[in-house]
């Protein structure tokens, strides 16, 4: 269910309120539909994965980034270009592991959680889990298998939101070209 709007490569901007509220409506609906937080987390991750798979195409079409040669370059592109393009924020990259295969993205402010508070009976809910799925799905489409998870979350009382990304392996098989 998608068609090109023919708007060229100009990225049209919109204000973040509608996006934040829509995401909130989605999470609330998921919490009603599923009994427990774990299922909601999984569902958010799955939905994020579906979004990521399509987002990567949009991203590659709009930015003129070529293939990344190593994980460090990937990290830079994700933080400085991709996040800026889609969410209007630039997370910082820290905590590189000695092997260079793990790093953390620190988000000072997360547009998904503007005006959001987690109630006490949903303390295991990972509210922004969609982002993990998006990153995982998008990177899988460029032949990188990664593991993404939240380490710190402002909703749970931490001072910043921290996402840990770990490179698992390069996907060698050719992925199928898509359902069409």
């Amino acid at each position, binding site marked *: *269910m*998608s*068609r*090109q*709007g023919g708007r060229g490569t100009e*990225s*049209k*901007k*919109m*204000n*973040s*309120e*509608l*996006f*934040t*509220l*829509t*995401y*909130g*409506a*989605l999470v*609330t*609906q998921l919490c009603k*539909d599923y009994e427990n937080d774990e299922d909601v987390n999984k569902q958010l991750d799955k*939905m994020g994965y*579906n*979004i990521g798979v*399509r*987002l990567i195409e*949009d991203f590659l079409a*709009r930015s003129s980034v070529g293939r990344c040669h190593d994980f460090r370059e990937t990290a830079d592109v994700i933080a400085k270009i991709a996040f800026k*393009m*889609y*969410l*209007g*924020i630039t997370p910082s990259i820290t905590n590189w592991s000695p092997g260079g295969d793990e790093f953390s993205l620190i988000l000072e*402010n997360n*547009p998904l959680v*503007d*005006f*959001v*508070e*987690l*109630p*006490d*009976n949903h303390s295991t809910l990972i509210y922004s889990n*969609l982002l993990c799925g998006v990153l995982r799905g998008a990177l899988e489409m460029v032949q990188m298998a990664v593991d993404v998870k939240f380490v710190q979350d*402002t*909703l749970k*009382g931490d001072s910043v939101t921290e996402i840990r990304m770990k490179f698992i392996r390069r996907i060698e098989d050719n992925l199928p070209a898509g359902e069409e």
Partner: protein
Amino acid sequence: MDARFTRGKSAVLERALGRPRSELSLAAFALLFSELVQYCQRRVASVAELQARLALLGRHVGLRALDALVARERPGRRDTKVLGVLLFVKGPLWRALFGREADKLEQANDDERTFYVIEREPLVNTFVSVPRENSSLNCAAFAAGLLEAALGAAGFPARVSAHWHKGTTLMIKFDEAVIARDKSLEGR
């Protein structure tokens, strides 16, 4: 205390009510919205149910969008007339949420309770194409739910539905009580 409520962990309520700080790309919203529609589609059996689900989600958004917006745009005043609230919806509300005003606001010729907000290309429908077998589906049902909740919260209960007409038309049908009240206000 009920576990549903937080114990004031964050300073969200003390924040200033300024303009939203970040702008994000339309693509991000479009992707999120498409995933939302697909999620609803998996759980329903008919187009009407899908539109109802979308409207429910829109309602959630509308309720929350109204308060902050009224505090910013109309500080200290509240719309008490139907026309006032409709102009508020067409202008500031639409602009704050969708980035531009709605195209037209019309009243039905034969029914004083019915108004139309018309948009040639609603923001939520960018990048949405409807397959022929579901041709009555209009994802602006999301916007309809949003509008219904916003009007209800502003004190003007109404039913809002989305139709394919001159682009997308949101048909607003106010409750009898609202129109009666409006008439008595004019009489004053």
